[in-house]
C-alpha cells in the first residue's frame, strides 16, 4: 500500500483551511503567507503524479478504493487517468496564482477569503479524482458553497445578484443530474462505480434521458449556449481570484463531465446527439464572439470570450475523433492558462484603476510597458497565434471536426476571425489610444505580479512549441475513450481522411 496521494491532495488544503480558521484574524500578513505556503506545498505534492504517471495505459492510476456507505454500495474511489491528471496540475498551479493575486486586493475578511479558496481547491481536486459517481456529486456540489461566498462576499457592486444567479443555475442543473445518477444507479446494477457503469449497455431511450439529465448539469457549467447567462455576471462580479478559478477550472468541469460520464457511459446517446451538440457549440462560438464586440466592460468581454472558446472545446469533444478530442482537452488546459492569465491581468489593473469600463482606459502601453507586453502575449495566445498554445488547441479541433463535418469546421473558423477582431480591438482601446491623463501616475508591475505571470508565459510557449508533451499524457486514455464511444480507437473519421494523427503533427519536436 503506497501513500494515498490523491486523498492527501484533496484533504491537505481542507486541513489547511481548518488551520487558517483557527488563527487570529488580526494578522493579515501571516494568514496570507500561510495560505501561500499551503498552496505551494499542495503544488509540490502534485509533482510526483506528473513523473510517476504511466502514459502507456488507460487504466486508472494512483487508485484508492474503500467502502464508504455500504447500504448503497457507495465507495470512496479515487483514481487518475490521462484526461484528469492535467486538470489536477492546473488546479494546484492556479490556486497559487490566486493566492498571489489576492495579496493586496483583498482587504476585508482576509482569513475567510483564503479559507474559502483552499476549501474550493480541495473540492476541485476531488471532482477530478472521483471515480464513484456519488462521490463526484458530493465534490461537485460542495464546490458551490465556497464559490458562492467568494463571489458574494468579496465581489463587485452587483455581487449578490451574481452569486445567487450562479448558485441557482448550477443547483438546478446539478439536481437534475442527481435524478439521472440515481436512475443510472438502479439500471446499472446498484453501483456508482463509473468504470463499471461504462462497461454496461443501456437502452437507447434511457440513454437519451440520462444524456439530457447530465447535459443539464454539465452544459450549465461549461457553459453552453443557451444556459450561459450566469457566466458573464459571475465572472464580472467575482474578485480577481474568483474569476480566475471560474475561468480556469470551474467551467472546465462541465466539459470534463461530458468526457468522463456522458460519453463513455452513454455512447449511443452521444452519437445520436452529436449534431445537436455540434450546433450548440457553433452557436456558442459565433454568438459568444459577436457579443464580445458589443461589450463595454473589460471583464464581461473576457467572460463572453470564454463562452466562445468553450464552444470550441465542446465542438472538439463531440466531433469524436482523436484529433478533435485531444484538441478539446488541450484547449481546456489552454483556455485555463490564457483566460486565467487575462483575468489575473485584469485583476491587477483593476486594483490600480477601480474601473472595468474599456472606455476609461487608453494609452496604458506607455505607462505600463511590461504589463502591456504580457497582455499582448495573452491576447495573441487567445487569438491562436502559431507558436502559442492557443493555436495548437484550436488547430487540432478544427482539423478533427473538418475530418468529420467540414461545414462545422468552416463555421467554427469564422469564430477565430471574430476572436482576433474583438481581442485586438480591446488591446487597441486599452493600450494604444490617446493616453488617459487619469493614469499618468499609475504604478508599474511589481515583482510579485511579474512572478504571477511567469508560469503562464512558460506554459503558453511550452504547450505552444512542444504540444506533444501534454498530448502524450492523454493519447492512450483518449483512444480508450473513443473506443468506448465509437468502437474505434481513432473515433469517427469519415469524410476527409488525412491519415495523420496528433502524435505526428508537423509541430511536434
Amino acid at each position, binding site marked *: 500500500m503506497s501513500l494515498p496521494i490523491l486523498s492527501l491532495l484533496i484533504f491537505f488544503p481542507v486541513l489547511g483551511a481548518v488551520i487558517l480558521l483557527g488563527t487570529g484574524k488580526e494578522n493579515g500578513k501571516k494568514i496570507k503567507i500561510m495560505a501561500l505556503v499551503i498552496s505551494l506545498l499542495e503544488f509540490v505534492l502534485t509533482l510526483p503524479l506528473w513523473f510517476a504517471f504511466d502514459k502507456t495505459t488507460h487504466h486508472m492510476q494512483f487508485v484508492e478504493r474503500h467502502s*464508504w*456507505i*455500504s*447500504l*448503497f454500495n457507495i465507495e470512496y474511489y479515487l483514481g487518475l487517468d490521462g484526461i484528469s491528471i492535467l486538470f489536477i496540475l492546473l488546479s494546484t498551479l492556479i490556486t497559487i496564482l490566486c493566492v498571489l493575486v489576492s495579496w493586496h486586493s483583498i482587504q476585508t*475578511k482576509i482569513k*475567510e477569503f483564503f479559507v474559502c479558496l483552499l476549501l474550493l481547491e480541495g473540492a476541485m481536486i476531488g471532482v477530478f479524482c472521483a471515480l464513484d459517481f*456519488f462521490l463526484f*456529486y*458530493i465534490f461537485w*456540489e*460542495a464546490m*458551490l*458553497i465556497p464559490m*458562492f*461566498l467568494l463571489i*458574494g*462576499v468579496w465581489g463587485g457592486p452587483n*455581487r*449578490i445578484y451574481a*452569486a*445567487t444567479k450562479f*448558485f*441557482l443555475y448550477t*443547483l*438546478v442543473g446539478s*439536481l*437534475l443530474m*442527481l*435524478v439521472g445518477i*440515481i*436512475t443510472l*444507479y*438502479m439500471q446499472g446494477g446498484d453501483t456508482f462505480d463509473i468504470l463499471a457503469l461504462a462497461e454496461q449497455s443501456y437502452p437507447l431511450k434511457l440513454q437519451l434521458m440520462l444524456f439530457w439529465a447530465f447535459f443539464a448539469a454539465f452544459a450549465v457549467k461549461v457553459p453552453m449556449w443557451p444556459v450561459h447567462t450566469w457566466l458573464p455576471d459571475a465572472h464580472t462580479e467575482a474578485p480577481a481570484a474568483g474569476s480566475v478559478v471560474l475561468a480556469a477550472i470551474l467551467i472546465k468541469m462541465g466539459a470534463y463531465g461530458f468526457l468522463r460520464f456522458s460519453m463513455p457511459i452513454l455512447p449511443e446517446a452521444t452519437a445520436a446527439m452529436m449534431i445537436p451538440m455540434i450546433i450548440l457549440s457553433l452557436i456558442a462560438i459565433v454568438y459568444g464572439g459577436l457579443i464580445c464586440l458589443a461589450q463595454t466592460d473589460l471583464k464581461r468581454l473576457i467572460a463572453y470570450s470564454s463562452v466562445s472558446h468553450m464552444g470550441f472545446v465542446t465542438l472538439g469533444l463531440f466531433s469524436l475523433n482523436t484529433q478533435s478530442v485531444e484538441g478539446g482537452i488541450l484547449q481546456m488546459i489552454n483556455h485555463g492558462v490564457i483566460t486565467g492569465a487575462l483575468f489575473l491581468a485584469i485583476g491587477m489593473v483593476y486594483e490600480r484603476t477601480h474601473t472595468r469600463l474599456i472606455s476609461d482606459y487608453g494609452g496604458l502601453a506607455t505607462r505600463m510597458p511590461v504589463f502591456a507586453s504580457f497582455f499582448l502575449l495573452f491576447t495573441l495566445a487567445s487569438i491562436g497565434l502559431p507558436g502559442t498554445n492557443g493555436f495548437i488547441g484550436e488547430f487540432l479541433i478544427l482539423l478533427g471536426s473538418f475530418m468529420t463535418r467540414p461545414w462545422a469546421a468552416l463555421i467554427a473558423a469564422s469564430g477565430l476571425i471574430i476572436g482576433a477582431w474583438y481581442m485586438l480591438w480591446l488591446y487597441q482601446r486599452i493600450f494604444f489610444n490617446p493616453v488617459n491623463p487619469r493614469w499618468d501616475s499609475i504604478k508599474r508591475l511589481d515583482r510579485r505580479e511579474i512572478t504571477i505571470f511567469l508560469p503562464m508565459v512558460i506554459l503558453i510557449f511550452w504547450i505552444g512549441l512542444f504540444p506533444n508533451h501534454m498530448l502524450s499524457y492523454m493519447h492512450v486514455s483518449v483512444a480508450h475513450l473513443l473506443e468506448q464511444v465509437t468502437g474505434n480507437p481513432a473515433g469517427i473519421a469519415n469524410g476527409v481522411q488525412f491519415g495523420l494523427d496528433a502524435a505526428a503533427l508537423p509541430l511536434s519536436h
Partner: protein
Amino acid sequence: MNIPFTLPALGPIMPEMLLVCMAIILVAVDLLFPRKKELLSQLVVLTTIGLIVMLFKQTPAVTFGTMFIVDPYAIFFKIICLFGLLMTTLLSGQYLKIEKINQGEYYSLMLFSVVGMMTMISAGDLIVVYLGLELMALSIYCLVGLLKNDWRANEASLKYFLMGAFSSALLLFGISLLYGMTGTTDLAGIAQYCLEADILTNPALLTGFALVLSGFCFKVGAAPFHFWTPDIYHGAPTTITSFMSVAPKAAGFAVLGRFLIMAFPESQDQWGPIIAIIALLSMAVGNIIAISQQNVKRMLAYSSIAHAGYALLGLLTGTSDGYSATMSYLYIYAFMNMGAFAVVILLCTKGHRRESLTDYKGLAKSNPGAALLMLIFLFSLTGIPPTAGFIGKFYLLKAALAAGYTWTVILAVIFSAISAYFYLRLIRYMYMEEAPQQFVTHYSPGIIAALAISAIGVIGIGIFPGTLLNWAARSLIVF
C-alpha cells in the same frame, strides 16, 4: 357475573409511565423549590438521556391486546421525539429567563406532550392513536400560549386550538367510518377485514380513509392542511416552535406510516399518488411562499411545510426503502432544524427578539461562529453536500425513483432548487451585507451543547451516514 381480569404486561409501557411520573414530579419540585429553576431543566435532561438509553435496550413486545406495539419502528421514532425534547430543554434555560416564562408547567407540559407522542407512535389501534394525539395536542396548545402578555402568542394558541379541534373531529369522523365499515379499530384488523370482505373500493371506506389521512396531514403540517403552521410557529415561544417542528412532526409521520402500511397495505397504488400530490403541493406551497417571508420563524415554518413534503416522498412508496428513507430524513431534519432554531434563540435578547431577516445583517462580521453554524444548517436544509441534508434528500429521491415516481422526483428537485433561494437569502444577509448593529449573545452551557450536537450531527451524518441509515433500515415495521 365474573369477568376475568388480568393486568396487561406493563413492561413495554415503562418509558411512558416514567415520563408521566416525572411530569408530575416536576410540578412538585417547582412548588417545593421555587428558587431553583435550573433544577427543572437538569432533571428533564437526565430523564431524557436515561429514557433514550432505556429505549435502545427495550425488547419488542405487544401489550394491551394489540393496542400498544413496541417494535424497532416505534423505538426509532420515540428516540427522535425524546431527542427533540432533550434539545429543546437545552435551549430553554436562557430563553425562558429572557421571556420570563420560567415555570414548572413548561417542562411538565412538554413531558406530557412527549408521552402523547410516544403513545401515538406505539399505537396499534385507532383509538389509542386518538388518545395519544389529543394528549400531545392539548399540552402543546398550552405551551404555544405560554407568553401570556404577547398577543401573537394568544392568537397562535387560540388558532391552533380551534384548528386542531377541527382536525381532530375530522380524524374521529374518519375513524368512526372505518369502524362502521370494518367493525374494528385495530389497524391490522382493518386490513384483514378489507381483504376478506373485498370492500377496498367502498366509497364509505374511502371517505373514512381520506378523513383520517387529512387528520394526520394536519399534524405533520402538509399542504393543503398547513394553514395553521406559519402563525403558530411565529407566535409560539421560539423554543416551542423548534420543539414543534421536530417532535410532533416525527410522531405524526410515525403514525401516518403505520396507518398506511398496516391498515391499507393492499391499496398502495391508490394512496401512493394521492400522497404524491400532497407532497408536491407541500413543497410548492412551502418553498414558494417562504421566498416572500421577512421573519425567520415564519420562513422556517414554511420551510418545515416543504420538508414535510420531502419526507412524504418516502412514505408514498410503501416500500421498506422508502420508509427507512423517511425515517432517516426525520432524524436528519431534527438535527438541522434544531440547529437553525438554536441560532435564532441564541440571538434573542431582552426586548429584541431578532426574528426579522434583516436583523441578521452583518452577523458574520460581529459573530463569525454563530454565522458559520447558521450557514452550515441552512446549507443542510437546502440539501447541499457534504451536509446531512443532502444524504437525507438523496435517500428519499432514490426510494421514490425506485418505486417509479419519476415525475414526482423531478418536480421535487425543482422545488428543492427553488428553496435554495430563501435559504441563501439569510446567508446573504449574514455574510454579504453590513449593518451597524450590535449582537448580544449569551452562550449558556445548554445552548453551546445544543449547537455542538446539531453541528456534529449535521456534518457527521453528512460524511459518515452509514450508522444512521443502517439503523433506520433495521427499524422497519415487518411488512
